[in-house]
């Protein structure tokens, strides 16, 4: 985002600025690092997207067409790993870097050098993942969940994935420490916790979740590593271990992880809706409590991913009840957003379109989640395309649409230019239509009995798979519109005022657009 940089140079005279590659390698500025995170995330989004295209091309028709089954498994596995750890999570950290200091009236993040390090750990991790396709045996094909003992059987691609996860975990933990410290210590005078913008709140809670569970994942994959190479038997019954232990440890990380990927999305949507409804967020404090409740509940529901492993009835019932409970705070959030819109004075620029689209489509994913929480129904639908549909409704229509909404919302602040609304709207409608075309039919496939992660299927599933594949290619191509809109906005366009959205009211809108290199050199006073 050159525009930011160019503008910043004449403003900032305290440090000298290396230019070119050195600038980006050595930068300790929260905006530069935010930009790096966002571009990295986009690159991974395209990489993971290409893998998804490979999956949908193979599944377009019954019969093995393009790949062999091993490679197909590698595609599904790496699509999952890259999208979760490479695309969605870093995108939210990018937002945190750009926005949190501006929204709380700070000049930068608390630990500037650690911030640089936590970003620059990511490219090597991503390289390990991508390179693993080219090592003997190829990338790991054990599914993104890397269940033992299948993952113990895999080739060296699995080791590369394990190291990539270690590195990305370290990066996430450092990022989280930085975010927590910044939020707790660097708020402008007068900004009490309950006056923070909701995006900051959701990130504060997310950061705690990350610190709690990333070490658990690191533990799980480290046990895998020692089982693979050092003759331990954590997951091997013959040596006194238990394969299901892996699943417990993994999902103790994995379930909070899905909230790590959705809570900041809730935060973004909670900023966008009031801005375009020109009306304050309804139920601010209940939003904060709902976010915290979801985070706490996320630690006691992990085994709902494991209903078919065979656990006692009491276990199944406990995890069913706990999981159903999550519907309550999630419902509160949806009701609050609708109440914020109610009797507002709304306009529908691109950020608002994505936010409203988010509420509509994410809620469908929420409902299928509720249906899946019911143990007997889950047992029928577990590991089918119904689950694939469910988590793409919450991760693509949920997290990704919120990310798009946030990008369109803050791009004027970041670049100093307004986004081309025609491109933005085209991006929204194409994404919305193709998304539903791809994933809605997957519900039917799952109900009818198509398992996930299979490279070929019975002919009865052919028509829905063909529709899903067409939708997927459409969705993939739609993202080029997004790229075009962003590049166009960086390079020029209508000058953005300090506050381009009439109803927006958090602190970043008090800064000029583009925002100066250091946000608030003297902290503003919040009344």
């Amino acid at each position, binding site marked *: 985002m050159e525009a930011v940089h160019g503008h910043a140079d004449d403003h900032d005279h305290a440090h000298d600025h290396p230019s070119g590659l050195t600038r980006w390698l050595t930068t300790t500025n929260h905006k530069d690092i935010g930009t790096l995170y966002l571009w990295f995330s986009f690159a991974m989004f395209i990489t993971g997207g290409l893998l998804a295209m490979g999956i949908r091309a193979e599944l377009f028709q019954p019969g093995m067409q393009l790949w062999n089954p091993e490679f197909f498994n590698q595609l599904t596995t790496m699509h999952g790993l890259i999208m979760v750890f490479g695309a969605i999570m870093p995108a939210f950290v990018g937002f945190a870097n750009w926005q949190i200091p501006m929204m709380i009236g700070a000049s930068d993040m608390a630990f500037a050098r650690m911030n640089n390090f936590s970003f620059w750990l990511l490219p090597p991790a991503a390289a390990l993942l991508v390179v693993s396709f080219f090592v003997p045996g190829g990338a790991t094909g054990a599914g993104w969940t890397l269940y033992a003992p299948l993952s113990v059987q895999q080739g060296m691609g699995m080791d590369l994935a394990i190291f990539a996860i270690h590195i990305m975990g370290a990066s996430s933990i450092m990022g989280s420490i930085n975010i927590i410290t910044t939020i707790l210590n660097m708020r402008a005078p007068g900004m009490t916790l309950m006056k923070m913008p909701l995006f900051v709140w959701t990130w504060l809670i997310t950061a705690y979740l990350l610190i709690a569970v990333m070490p658990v994942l690191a533990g799980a994959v480290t046990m895998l590593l020692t089982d693979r190479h050092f003759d331990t038997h954590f997951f091997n019954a013959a040596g006194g271990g238990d394969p299901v232990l892996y699943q417990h440890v993994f999902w103790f990380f994995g379930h909070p992880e899905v909230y790590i990927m959705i809570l900041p999305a809730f935060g973004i949507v909670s900023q966008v809706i009031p801005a375009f409804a020109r*009306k304050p967020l309804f139920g601010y404090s209940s939003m904060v409590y709902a976010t915290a409740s979801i985070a706490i509940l996320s630690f006691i529901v992990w085994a709902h991913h494991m209903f078919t492993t065979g656990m006692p009835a009491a276990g199944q019932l406990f995890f069913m009840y706990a999981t159903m409970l999550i519907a309550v705070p999630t419902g509160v959030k949806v009701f609050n957003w609708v109440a914020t819109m109610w009797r507002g004075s709304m306009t529908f620029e691109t950020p608002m379109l994505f936010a409203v689209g988010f509420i509509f489509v994410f809620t469908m994913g929420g409902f299928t989640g509720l*249906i899946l929480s019911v*143990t007997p129904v889950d047992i029928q639908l577990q590991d089918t395309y119904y689950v694939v549909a469910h988590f793409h409704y919450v991760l693509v229509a949920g997290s990704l649409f919120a990310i798009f909404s946030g990008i369109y919302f803050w791009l004027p602040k970041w670049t100093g230019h307004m986004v081309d609304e025609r491109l933005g709207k085209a991006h929204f409608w194409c994404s919305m239509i193709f998304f539903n075309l791809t994933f809605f039919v997957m519900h039917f496939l799952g109900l*009818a009995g198509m398992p996930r992660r299979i490279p070929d299927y019975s002919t009865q599933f052919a028509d829905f798979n063909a529709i899903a594949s067409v939708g997927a290619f459409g969705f993939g191509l739609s993202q080029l519109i997004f790229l075009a809109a962003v590049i166009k906005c960086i390079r020029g366009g209508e000058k953005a005022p300090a506050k381009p959205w009439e109803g927006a009211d958090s602190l970043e809108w008090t800064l000029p657009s583009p925002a100066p290199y250091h946000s608030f050199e003297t902290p503003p006073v919040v009344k």
Partner: protein
Amino acid sequence: MMKKSLGAALAMLPLWAGAVLAAESKYNLQPPKSVIAQEIYSLHTIIMLICAVIFVGVFSVMFYSVFKHRKSLGYKAAHFHENTVVEVVWTIIPFLILMGMAYPATKTVIAMKDTSNPDLTIKATGYQWKWGYEYIKGDGDLAGVGDGIQLYSNLATPRDQIYDKNVAKSPDYLLEVDTPLVVPVGKKVRILTTANDVIHAWWVPAFGVKQDAIPGFIRDTWFRADTTGTFRGQCAELCGKEHGFMPIVVKVVSVEEFKTWADQNKTKVAAAPAETVVDAAPAAPVQVAAAEPAKAGKVDGKKVYDGLCAACHATGAAGAPKTADKAAWKPRIAQGADTLHQHAIKGIRAMPAKGGNPALSDAEVTAAVDHMVGQSK
């Protein structure tokens, strides 16, 4: 433009809901063929309906607002931002709805977990990549009927249907096996699952049964089939490259037919298993079967032989007696089939146990030996 498509989307909802709820439709769960599957089906229908009602309610409000409360229509924003009563109400009502859902679900969970007093017990073992079945001695209604029968279910779809676009696909493409599991109608069948290598999952949608098969552990589940017929499912846990190619086929027959089938197959258990079970000699002593229930069933000895044994026994490598070398085999055959089987299973001289593949079952090794013996007489 936007109004139109959103309106159309809303209008589609009841249509879609209707289609989804229609029985026997490709938009819904498979027609249930057991009590549990029926309960799952009804649970799913009820919860879908509740969700559909809430969905329509919430989004009618939202879209009303989207269309009416617009700046372009000159609508002025109100400024309310909290209402304790409303917030408490929309926290408590969903909670009550959830309790309503949890009640029937709890009953079904408890019914699903009750694997006690089965009429028939079958152990299903997941292998990379096929299913093995063993009828276990039990004391239910069908005690003793199928004891010790062992079968292996391999994908029956020919390779060229999968890899060659020009070959027409059979109606049950990828959902057909060489040897289906056979169970009686109306009897409680308990399935014990385990696995030989990685985790698999035994899933037959029509019975509402899905249970992971975990290496080194035994789990169980049950079903009672309502009707006779053939029911198809698949492995539901990623288990490696052929995960998509290890279907499950259950043939449900009348109790009489099941008894006949079991008797025939027990004869085969008693008989020395040969390459084709039909040829089995009926004269073999019964106690062999009792002593070694594992060596049984319809295993394709030739297949095992081609896949493993042929490496040495076709060429005479490492001093192995060549197949069809009658002179080399004559003294060995004279030792008796049982001794030969034991040697092959435990290993002898240069030959490692089970020919070096511990993943083979005793039945498979036995079948391969019998195949070689048949070729070398």
